[in-house]
């Protein structure tokens, strides 16, 4: 029976619609204590004096800790695999609590109390005196010669990197036209519906157990070890169901501190749950970027030279450090071809919330700039913007000379053709007369290209373990985490397919526990179906072979003549059933001579990558006098290779597109420019779209086959969030003739632009 490619309902769906799925806050430990963090009310400075005596004396308070009480060494937080090369290790630039205040809301002290309210009230009794500096909120201010260093010895630069291929100056000289543009993207937040939360206790064996809403339990364990300065194996991380992550939980935010706090109260359980307001400023955000593009094109519309300068505002701590800006440089190369290309990126500290990974890892940002820039060039040269893109795009077989990443499948052209059809591009373009009224319609599109996993930049390790139970069912354990995307379901499909059993016979252990679960670096980079999927496939193949060999022993029919079909051992040549898998399973446990339960425990170290492609087509209407954009139709068309579960795949695209629509039109974190105080760190003032704001989201796939993947599949989790923003920007240009260079394209911004251009 075939399982891959089928629309199986989610295996965790039943538990979730019944409210039975358990998340971190749904576990109750006896005598749980609650922690609250004392946050700075300035954005830049030092704590000169702190008085916690009143807080300590408050009834119900178990402990109050400050920066003076925590380990003095610094630790990193990024959800990256550890690197043995010190040069490539993540930046270790924070302590559990800090005396040096680097953002509004920085973590200075913490209270542990019998309940949350007591802890909150105790916070109000803590007295702090600051030495205050002017907050540095922009990269320009941060890079000024006289700027105060947010982290000593850094000049506020986390890192600068560049690359260069071909003779750039010659190539520009050879170009007939040169175009230059600048784009700005805003800071946004993941807004997973479940806030960051974890609790910790010391178990009967002296282990520090942390139950956390994390995408990366195994990395979390290591970082807790680093932060507390304890052997890594002494930390144990358990990840139950989690209420969304989108990258903000690909970072270690609450876990080390809560682990430390349990040690302060002699191992009693302590919980640290962020409020929504804290999640906004104290977890992670998406980097605001500034991009400068320079592109040389010849008379035939071929791109000759390209250059990019990117500056990333990383906020107060390094988190993923320069990796995200550096990913922009890599992706800058992949979509289009040219003779010579150069890129340079800098990542800068400021006194803002720390930026980290968020769905697309820098690529929604650069693609907003790149695809807007491409549109403007095409229009300037009076070329068809779609043809201009396709004419210059890299083809199947393209190899990135710097990373070695190779496009072994590329369905971009088909995606574009499908998108064009779906939206009725040609028809609408021909019928379009120039709008001059209050409501103006426009069409726009944008393309993207995205990696699958992090190879060769990061180690890509994924573990899977399968046990054949006594009744012929299997249990599958993976180190990769289900975070809502549906990975557990597709892993079950993969295992069923490869072993030759029905999906009902597969049970996936959804929770990860670092003491039990195989090692996997976690959920990020759209890697699971590709990297962890390969681990599942390898484990399933091993099980299959072991079963057939065992059956050989039982029946004397050579394994090479046998296969497994729908839970039966059968002849390959005619499908005739020989014996049931359940019989083999029972024998493998209870045969008095040969019993040896059948298991597989596999690690996949992926050393390939695959490029996923796609595009967005959109039609919008601008209400000019009120400066509002309405999305009338939107289609995202993806080449994600072969689909494992089409229904889940479409659902991924809906969610990604919705997030991108928010990025394009609504969302932005705002700060008071004098104090650095957050202005809209709640779900009322930060504008997530509601049902009433979300258009119908059209989705389609071009199924190519990726040979390096376990089942022909490629990245899908992040790609949907990439191309909608530039497509909308280009549609606004089409509708109004106004070019916008900054997201979000919200009414205030459009109003100013329309004023500036005389449209209002």
């Amino acid at each position, binding site marked *: 029976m075939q399982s891959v490619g089928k629309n199986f309902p989610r295996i965790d769906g039943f538990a979730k619609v019944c409210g039975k799925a358990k998340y971190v806050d749904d576990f109750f430990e006896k005598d749980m204590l609650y922690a609250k963090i004392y946050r700075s009310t300035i954005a830049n400075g030092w704590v000169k004096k702190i008085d916690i005596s009143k807080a300590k004396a408050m009834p119900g308070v178990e402990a109050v800790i400050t920066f003076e009480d925590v380990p003095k060494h610094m630790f990193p937080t990024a959800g990256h695999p550890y690197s043995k090369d010190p040069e490539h290790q993540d930046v270790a630039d924070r302590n559990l609590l800090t005396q040096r205040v680097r953002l509004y809301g920085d973590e200075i002290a913490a209270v542990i109390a019998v309940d949350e309210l007591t802890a*909150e009230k105790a916070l109000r009794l803590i007295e702090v005196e600051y030495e205050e500096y002017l907050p540095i909120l922009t990269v320009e201010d941060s890079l000024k010669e006289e700027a105060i260093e947010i982290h000593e010895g850094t000049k506020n630069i986390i890192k600068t990197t560049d690359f260069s291929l071909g003779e750039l100056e010659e190539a520009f000289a050879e170009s007939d036209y040169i175009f230059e543009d600048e784009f700005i993207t805003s800071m946004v937040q993941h807004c997973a519906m479940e806030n960051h939360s974890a609790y910790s206790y010391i178990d009967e064996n002296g282990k520090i157990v942390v139950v956390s809403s994390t995408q990366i339990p195994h990395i979390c364990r290591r970082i807790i070890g680093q932060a507390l300065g304890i052997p890594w194996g002494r930390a144990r991380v358990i990840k139950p169901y989690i209420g969304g992550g989108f990258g903000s939980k690909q970072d270690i935010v609450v876990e080390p501190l809560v682990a430390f706090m349990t040690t302060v109260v002699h191992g009693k359980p302590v919980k640290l749950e962020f409020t929504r307001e804290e999640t906004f400023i104290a977890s992670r955000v998406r980097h605001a970027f500034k991009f400068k593009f320079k592109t040389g094109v010849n008379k035939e519309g071929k791109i000759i030279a390209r250059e990019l300068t990117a500056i990333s505002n990383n906020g107060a701590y390094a988190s993923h450090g320069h990796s995200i800006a550096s990913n922009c440089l890599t992706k800058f190369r992949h979509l289009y071809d040219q003779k010579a290309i150069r890129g340079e990126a800098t990542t800068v500290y400021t006194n803002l919330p720390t930026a980290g990974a968020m769905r697309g890892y820098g690529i929604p940002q650069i693609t907003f700039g790149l695809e807007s820039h491409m549109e403007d060039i095409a229009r300037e040269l009076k070329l068809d913007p779609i043809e201009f893109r396709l004419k210059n795009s890299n083809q199947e077989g393209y190899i990135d000379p710097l990373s070695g990443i190779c496009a072994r499948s590329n369905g971009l052209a088909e995606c574009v053709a499908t998108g064009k059809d779906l939206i009725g591009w040609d028809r609408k373009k021909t019928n379009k007369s120039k709008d001059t009224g209050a409501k103006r319609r426009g069409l726009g599109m944008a393309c993207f290209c995205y990696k699958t996993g992090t190879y060769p930049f990061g180690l890509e390790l994924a573990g899977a373990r399968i046990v054949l139970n006594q009744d012929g069912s299997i249990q599958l354990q993976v180190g990769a985490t289900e975070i809502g995307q549906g990975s557990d379901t597709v892993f079950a499909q993969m295992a069923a397919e490869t072993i030759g059993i029905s999906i009902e016979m597969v049970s996936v252990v959804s929770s990860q526990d670092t003491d039990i679960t195989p090692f996997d670096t976690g959920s990020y980079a759209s890697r699971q179906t590709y990297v962890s999927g390969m681990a599942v496939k390898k484990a399933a193949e091993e099980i299959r072979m072991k079963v057939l060999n065992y059956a050989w022993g039982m029946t004397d029919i050579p394994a090479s003549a046998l296969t497994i079909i729908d839970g039966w051992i059968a002849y390959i040549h005619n499908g005739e059933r020989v014996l049931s898998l359940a019989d083999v399973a029972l024998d493998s446990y209870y045969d008095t001579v040969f019993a040896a339960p059948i298991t597989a425990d596999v690690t996949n170290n992926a050393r390939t990558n695959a490029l996923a492609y796609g595009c967005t087509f959109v039609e919008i209407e601008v209400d000019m006098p*009120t400066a509002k954009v309405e999305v009338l139709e939107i289609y995202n068309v993806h080449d994600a290779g072969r689909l494992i579960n089409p229904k889940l795949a479409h659902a991924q695209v809906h969610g990604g597109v919705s997030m991108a629509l928010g990025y394009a039109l609504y969302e932005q974190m*705002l700060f008071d420019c004098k104090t650095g105080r957050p202005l809209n760190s709640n779900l*009322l003032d930060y504008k997530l779209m509601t049902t009433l704001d979300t258009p119908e989201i059209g989705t389609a796939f071009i199924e190519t086959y990726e040979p390096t993947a376990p089942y022909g599949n490629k990245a899908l989790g992040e790609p949907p969030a990439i191309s909608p923003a530039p497509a909308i920007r280009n549609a606004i240009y089409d509708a109004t003739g106004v070019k916008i260079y900054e997201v979000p394209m919200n009414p205030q911004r459009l109003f*100013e632009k329309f004023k500036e251009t005389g449209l209002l």
Partner: protein
Amino acid sequence: MYDIAKYEEAGSVQEAIELLLVNPNAMLISGGSDVLIKLHEGKIHDAQLISIHGIAELKGIFLKEDGTIVIGSGASFSQVSKHPIVQQYIPVLGEAVDMVGGPQIRNIGSIGGNICNGVTSADSASTLFAFNAKLEIQGPDGVRYIPIADFYKGPGKVDLRHEEILTTILIAPEDYQGYSGHYIKYAMRNAMDIATLGCVVLCNVEGGKKIKDFRLALGVAAPIPMRCKGTEEQVKGRIFTEALLEEVGKMAIEEVNPRTSWRASKEFRIQLIQELSKRAFRQAFINAGGEL
């Protein structure tokens, strides 16, 4: 858990007043969607609450014999918008409060609370301004009545003494009979938002063309909700034309005083006032039987 130091439940308005009298630090809680949020934000702590949540006499909506519409201050937004009297006689008020927050908020938030907050963006306020609503306020010395326009003293400030309670909102027959209206809430999203600008027009139209009466009220166009009286005077008695529509937009922006905040700039709000007063006027005119 909320930081509540004391909690008392009043069974009647009288009892609530008595409780207020003896405790100068007490504050009223009705629906809770305002007080509890302030508690969560830490803007209030150790709150001493007197709950009027369960007082039935505050929730009624009915028609007096003389045609006055009476709305209890404790009526939730959804009770107001779904009430047959509101739907029949003053549907525009129902439409306005149906744009507050989302459904769950409308089930709990009370119209009286919305007014007593004294914020300029309250969806109910501008519409009640247009209806010349009167407020009935009960205190230890009895009952007093005050036009809603006089109730608002400044941002977040209303004419309500500590031991007083807003009990009902009254709309006189001459203020709604013959009128139709239209409310436009301009916000960044279509639900769960506060108005960047609220705009309501009430019209009384004669013979399909002539505007017998015209009222224009705005929220967020000034520190408190307001009427554009000057514009209203200019429109009364005129025949509806596109030119008049343009005039209304232009006149309205002469009367307003919006502010720049991180939510929107003064200039943008002025643009919205000009545009939305036209749009609301056109729709209100049509709703009132006007022929374009």
